């Protein structure tokens, strides 16, 4: 696992199992790539660094090469979604006349962020006239991935027979560019926060631990290829199974965790 601005270093060992190998050259590449699944074969490399390990010639013995992509800027976080994948990988290529020998090794990259400077609570009054008025409040607008959503729902007017209320986390993955945008919506979590029908004046507490769910940081316009956005969806269900909801975007970010950051991945 790599952090954004760290060097990617390692060793490449080539074992010949006693034979000789003739090659055009041996190189190692560090590649950041965005793949759109509906556009197979048309991947886009936003990062591509090459180091030559061995000039063309003949290898007679096993060899080990150190490489170091020094303090390489990795602008995005690894992501695997419904329609899109962003990956970093090392590719070692032994170039030959007929067919190259290629080994790829994926590297996960997390982009760690600082505590946001501005992080106001989200507060909003919503409703349907003469039917339902609620005010909800989430303690923050930006949550790190191990954070907890704390909040409250105030019922200002209740004229419908509510059966229960839940809070959902929704991920929207938007790919492509206008006008050919493709949005995939996925419900990551469904969490009941109220059972039964409240009356006017009630306030219902919210406490949702995020660490239990499979979340990524919010990504916006990654390389102008895709975005991943998260929403808290507050849903009220009435006795006739009608659903009343309000979506509110939250920003997710990955908090720097020193333990994770120092972990090194050993490569082949």
């Amino acid at each position, binding site marked *: 696992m790599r952090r954004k601005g760290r060097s990617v270093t390692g060793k490449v060992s080539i074992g010949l199992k006693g034979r000789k190998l003739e090659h055009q050259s041996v190189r190692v590449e560090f590649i950041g790539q965005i793949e759109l699944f509906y556009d197979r074969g048309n991947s886009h490399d936003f990062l591509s660094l090459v180091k030559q390990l061995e000039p063309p010639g003949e290898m007679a013995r096993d060899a080990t090469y150190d490489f170091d992509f020094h303090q390489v800027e990795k602008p995005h976080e690894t992501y695997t979604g419904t329609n899109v994948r962003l990956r970093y990988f090392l590719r070692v290529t032994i170039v030959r006349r007929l067919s190259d020998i290629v080994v790829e090794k994926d590297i996960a990259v997390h982009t760690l962020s600082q505590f946001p400077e501005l992080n106001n609570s989200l507060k909003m009054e919503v409703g349907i006239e003469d039917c339902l008025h609620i005010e909800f409040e989430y303690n923050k607008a930006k949550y790190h991935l191990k954070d907890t959503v704390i909040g409250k729902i105030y019922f200002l007017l209740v004229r419908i027979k509510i059966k*229960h209320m839940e809070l959902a986390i929704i991920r929207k993955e938007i790919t492509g560019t206008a006008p050919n945008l493709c949005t995939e919506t996925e419900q990551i979590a*469904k*969490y*009941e*926060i*109220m*059972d*039964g*029908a*409240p*009356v006017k004046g*009630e*306030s*219902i*507490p919210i*406490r949702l*631990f995020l660490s*239990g769910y499979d979340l990524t940081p919010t990504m916006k316009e990654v390389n102008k290829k895709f975005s991943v956005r998260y929403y808290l969806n507050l849903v009220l269900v009435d006795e006739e199974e009608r659903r009343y909801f309000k979506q509110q975007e939250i920003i997710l970010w990955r908090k720097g965790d020193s333990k994770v950051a120092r972990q090194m991945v050993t490569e082949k």
Partner: protein
Amino acid sequence: MAMEDQEKLLTEALNQVKKNAFEMKTCLDNNKLMDALKYASNMLGELRTSLLSPKSYYELYMSISDQLQHLEQFLIDEFQKGKKISELYELVQYAGNIVPRLYLLVTVGMVYIKAKEGSRRDILRDLVEMCRGVQHPLRGLFLRNYLLQCSRNQLPDGNTQGEQDGSVHDSIQFIEQNFSEMNKLWVRMQHQGHTREKERREKERLELRILVGTNLVRLAQLEGLDIGIYQKEVLPNVMEQVIKCRDAIAQEYLMECVIQVFPDEFHLQTLNLFLKSCADLQDTVNVKGIIIALIDRLAAYAHRSDSGGIPAEIKLFDIFSQEVTLVIQGRAAMPVEDIVALYASLVNLALKCYPTRIDYVSKTLGCCLEAFKKREVSKIDSSNPVYKELIRLMKVPIETYEDTLTVLKLENFPDLFELFVFQGRRALSLFLVQTIVDRDCIIPSSEEVEQLFKLISPLLINQPDQPKEPEEDDDFVEEQWLVGRLVHLLKASSPDQQFVTLSAVRKQFGAGGDKRITHTLPPLIFAAYKLVKQYSTLQQQDDKWEKKCERIFQFCLQTTNALTKVKPDMAQRLFLQGALAADQINSETIAYEFITQAMSLSEEESSDLRSQQATITLIMGTVERMKCLGEDNHATLRTNCAQASARLLKKPDQCRAVLTSAHLFWSGKVAGKELQDGKKVLDCVKRSGKFAQQCMEKVVQTQLFVELLNSCILFTHKGNDEVASTLTQLFDKVKEDVKGLESGEESEQIRKHFENTLEYIRNTSGHFGLSV
């Protein structure tokens, strides 16, 4: 929903619980906590149902909460092994459904507290707050009940704990919040569902009330809850919640709850607040019942030996009196009977706590009277709901005062009496008199007589609103006897006063009409004779005693005269009794007067033949006993008696009466000395024998002769030689006669009588010279 459906649903749910509980326990045994939690959550999922009635839901809840104890025990063991409970506390909150989640949270929370890992105060706060998520009344009530039950022994109490751990204030806050939320849920039940199911809903709510009330019980159980906190914090908050919920069922129950669960000492210090709150309750609340419950409790407290009594600085009666009046004023719709019941309770309080403050009771009665005036209530009959309550109220002082006559000192008591129609006044009068008689309450003067008799006049004289002339049935007779028994309770400070009292009673009784006086005057006359006897013992102290006795006899003569027309035989006996009384004080003139009154009455009135014989016997018996008569008067009387005896119509009557008259000549006394005129006695015996001889029926004749023989034996025994000389002849005759009797039931009796006589003779030394 039909019963079978309920049972089926419940059985299914319980089966699920069993299944999941089994899996849960298996996982716990294998130390697989995560899996165990999953099964626990499944089990708890059964509590999400909306289909069960409160009763079935309760069963389900109980079964589940039993199972959760296994989980709790396991977790306690875990933390003792060093596991961090705080992580678990977060972990269980990932459960997607709120009901299972919160049950788990509470369960883990309690272990969290026991592990002393986190601040007890904060955990409790968090739990009670998170429970808000369940807004469904039934599910919410049970969840919060679970919280309350689990936290039972975990609440900080007293002031021993540190700041972090919380103090009794935190516990109070915790319970109060839980209480307020539970009450809201409970009240909300009333407003959910169809209106036509209102009755069923109210029934269900009553089944659930204990869940809400338990909060108050828990508050009361806090040792750190002292009067100061109760007064400043707890009661105001509880009252606010009670009033704010605007629900009659809740208000009624919770007010009663407060009264029952908190100690009397607390109530005493918070009366004003509590009672003021009563005034703010919904119109349909039975405020009467609430206030009465409190009053009765405090009255009992004041009366209890182990209590310190009512502190002097608490003007208990004044506070209640004032607040009750305000409550009544504030509730125009309050039924009058409820008002009466409230005042009855207030009277009870005054009597129990302030037994000497007659004015308190008077004042309350006055308030009651005032209320009647305001509501224009009068002529209360038994169909009026007020009737029963007012009777009850009036009976309280009658029953409570040791000296029942204290009620005569109560202002407004008579006025309230007057509000009843005849029936009620009669019933109350009877109750009053019965109580006085049962307790032997002394009536000390004519003043009390007048007050009392005015009150119980429905028993004494015909009333304008009386439905009809009283019938002389058993009830009436018993009632009049009861009135008569009052006479024996008249005990004035002096004989003179006693006479004044008796005269006062005489006046009242006299107005009662013929049907009553036959029952009421005789005891009065006896009381008067008793007074004569009393004077006779005071000869040394009172030189006018003789004069006074004369007045009493005049009084008796007049009084008895009132009876001569209505009940001559009774009058006659009373005259004879008077003669005996006069004899005891040696007053010949009066005694003679009374005897002659009796005799003339017998001549005038006795038409009944049987009673004539009885009467003459009675008169002779009286004359025989008297000692004060001089020769002249005695001669007149005995001769008269003998003549009257001979004048009777039937031979057997003549025979017996003349035989009786013989005693006047032997044991009759002139100037205190027995006559013992043997010749005259023999004359009578002979004449009696002649009358017997004249009887045609042999059986009757023989019976008379046996009786004659007996009398002769008596006279012989007493030393009458004249009679003794005839004894042998008579004996032989009787013996023959008895032998000659035909067999039969009567003959058998006579034979037995004779045999008994023989037995007596045999046992007598000398056998009177008879050969038996």
